[in-house]
């Protein structure tokens, strides 16, 4: 298989990688960069487990070929944990037991943060809608909705920009 050289900025670090044209970004993150917090549940764009941020927008890493991400700024759960951007969401998930096996969780957190960045005052139905592309087999979703709701209200109360 022919390989192509690409450059990616992942969690603030620049990487020069040789990848096959057919390799999707989730595999590159997991296998080449050992960023195993990005999970794979279906590899056909349905479960949402591979959700990451590409140039600020949430994206399914299994639906993007690595070569398509050339030059992109990529953020994964490891980076968002490091910067502290989603610390409050992580705390709320833990306190509300909004994860059981935790396999959906990194993507769920990133998706929730995306909602709160665009809509700081979502109601429960809006939260449910926004995470409806992220499958969770364990929780039944209610604890996740509660956790996101708690953080939305806390951020409002703190008067922060989200």
């Amino acid at each position: 298989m022919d390989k192509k050289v690409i450059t990616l900025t992942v969690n603030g670090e620049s990487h020069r990688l040789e990848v096959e044209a057919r390799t999707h970004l989730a595999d590159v993150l997991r296998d080449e960069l050992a960023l195993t917090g990005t999970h794979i549940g279906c590899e056909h764009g349905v479960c949402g487990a591979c959700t990451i941020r590409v140039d600020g927008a949430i994206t399914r890493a299994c639906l993007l070929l690595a070569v398509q991400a050339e030059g992109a700024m990529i953020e994964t759960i490891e980076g968002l944990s490091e910067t502290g951007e989603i610390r409050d969401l992580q705390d709320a998930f833990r306190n509300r037991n909004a994860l059981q096996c935790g396999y959906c969780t990194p993507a769920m957190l990133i998706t929730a943060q995306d909602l709160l960045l665009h809509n700081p005052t979502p109601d429960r139905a809006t939260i449910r809608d926004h995470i409806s592309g992220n499958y969770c087999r364990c929780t039944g979703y209610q604890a996740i909705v509660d956790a996101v709701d708690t953080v939305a209200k806390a951020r409002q109360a703190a008067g922060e920009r989200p």
Partner: protein
Amino acid sequence: MTDPLSPLDRPNSYIGRTVPRPNLERLVEGRGTYVSDMTLPRMGHVVFVRSPYAHARILEIDTSVAKQAAGVIAVVTGAELVEQCSPWVGVLSHLKGLKSAPQHAMAVDRVCWQGEAVCAVVANSRAQAEDAAEQVQVRYEELEPVTDMRTALEPHIPVIHPELGDNLAFERSLDAGEVDKAFAEADAVAEAEFVFGRHTGVTLEARAVLADWNPGERRLTVYQGTQAPHMMQNIFAKHLALEEAQVRVVCKDVGGSFGIKVHVYADEMATAALSKRLKRPVKFVADRIESFVTDIHARDHVCKGRIAVKQDGTITAFAIDDLTGIGPYSMYPRTSAIEANQVVNLVGGPYQARNYRARARVVFQNKNVMCQYRAVGHPIACSVTEGLVDLAARAIGMDPLVIRSKNLIRDDAYPTDSPSGLKFEALSHHASLAKLKQMMDYDGLRAEQKRLRQQGIYRGIGIASFIEVTNPSAAFYGVGGARISSQDGVSVRMDATGAIIVQTSLTEQGQGSEALTAQVVASALGVALEKVRVILGDTDNTPYGGGTWASRGAGIGGEAAWQAGKALRMNILKVAGTILQTVPELLDIDQGVVVDKATGRERIGLDEVARITYFRPDTLPADFQAELLATRHYVPRQYPFAFTNGIQASWLEVDTETGFVTLLNHWCVEDCGTIINPQLVDEQIRGGVVQGLGAALFEHCRYDERGQLTNGTMADYLVPMASEMPDIEVGHVVSPTLESELGAKGAGEAGTAGAAAAVANAVNDALDPFDVTITEIPLTPSVILKALGQRSG
């Protein structure tokens, strides 16, 4: 020593407290270690060539081209792998008459379902293995598949395993009381045929295994997402011709299990056998289509039911005839007859009626294997029972809650038993029903339903009472000859700084085993939760035990943790007593400090006790040996199972134009005895309910008549997503089991047991004005429209 303090009264007890699970931080940061994340030096990736046919003879496998492909380490056929891995037969001796055929790690000369592996390709990367697998040429001669379980026993249908004589794997009949008389004397008899589609677990992390045979150590280490590591240790040893001591099973983070990951899968056995053959680590991770065609499927029943009722509402008899299709083999080692057996055991279980007749037949078919998934048999038994109770209520014009309160076993009737021989220690059907009625405002909803009907809005209320098997003793598997332990063991030790290390045979797949163990041990000892670290999921480093299945973690492993914690506390107090020159009985431990029991006065810190024990034993009397490690095991003996009970209700709306169902609210009241962590119990219930709701409305493995699965992607197989699910209100009644000191029973399956029954009853209640009864799940729009259309046409 008898302890005057109950677990709940210990100073600063964590029993009954919501505290966050200790293992969550790494998971929210994406720092978990799931098997799919793991790599080892020289690791090969295996990809399986799988049969495209449901039933076919293998004529030839040509691996020559594949073997030359880039990165390929080995290409091994099923026939070749027989050298490393012996076949198995999924039967248990207490399921009388159960039969099955030998199953191999990969098909040898014949494939029996679409997706069965025939050849393995091991390469340096998964992509290379997939490329090479496409080069494996397999010639098949297609055979007639047996797909319809309704005709599987007819004489003109081929027998899948001719040596077995027929396609009947198992049959059980039961006749209790005077069933014919009860039906003859009934004021009304209602009957229906209940149909349950096949569905599956869809764990978000697919099955994954990494096997590492090290010829230097002559040991096999298997990293596996399994619920039962000790069971797997035995199975790997047995079929790979090793001693158990040569096998270590390690279970790190697991991306969901629900009973899917408690079975022996042929491709996982093949992976371990390949590692032994190739003398290097081999990893298998199922992709999603492989999950759909090889993870065990569940349910797939057609059950005819009848109920006899008197005009005053007294239910006098139940009768069922259940048929289920299990694929071509009974699964190993738990067998595929347990679910049908459970259906026979459980139908009518919450009710007083003593007349009960049941037959269950389990048949082979050329579809994927079928076996135990969360709530095994309960959703079938509950849907049939509760569907029949609603039909009886309708036949005599009685409110569904009223007929239940007339017939549920009285709360003061315990201990008692069921016509099928189940023993009930203490259940709380009436207290649960009363609580549910109040939580949901039953009368208010009935009024709203009536008002909305006048506007052409059809809403329904569905009620489902249930009982649940938890805390299984050896009666489940052990008596049938399976080496599946029903006891659990816990070791607790204090290290040299006073910190506590716990090793338990429970496993964790997100239920909270680690948390409940830490809470119980911290309470038993009298230390802060943060001082306790729990180790689990490793056959080399935990006591021997069953693991996590059949809602046994809190009730069995929790009790073992309690007993071990208590024993260590006594051991610590003996050391402290020696140091302080007093008797241990006058001391206790509170928040990590040895105190005078009577006054609470602080005497010596655990860190100091540890320091003296480990570094200055010379200061202790010569005839005294400190033991800062205690191990205890536990298994229930008095009752084969600790039954729990509960009741669920669904409130939903049916769009009679489109057939769509909108879930508006769902309630579950359940009684799992002592609650160790209320939040974890509630979330187990909610997660379980949603799995039941998925089965009720969406989930269905659809096969065509050639045995081809037609919806093997997540776009085609629908699972519940957040926007379709309601909030779920959970309530509790607490009837502890007196068999253990903790009094905990299981809660993991209660949600799944009754959710579909509640939804089906609610749909029928909503459609009452149209005079239709639907007894089929999933209740897809087309099922509902068809029923409505048949009525008008």
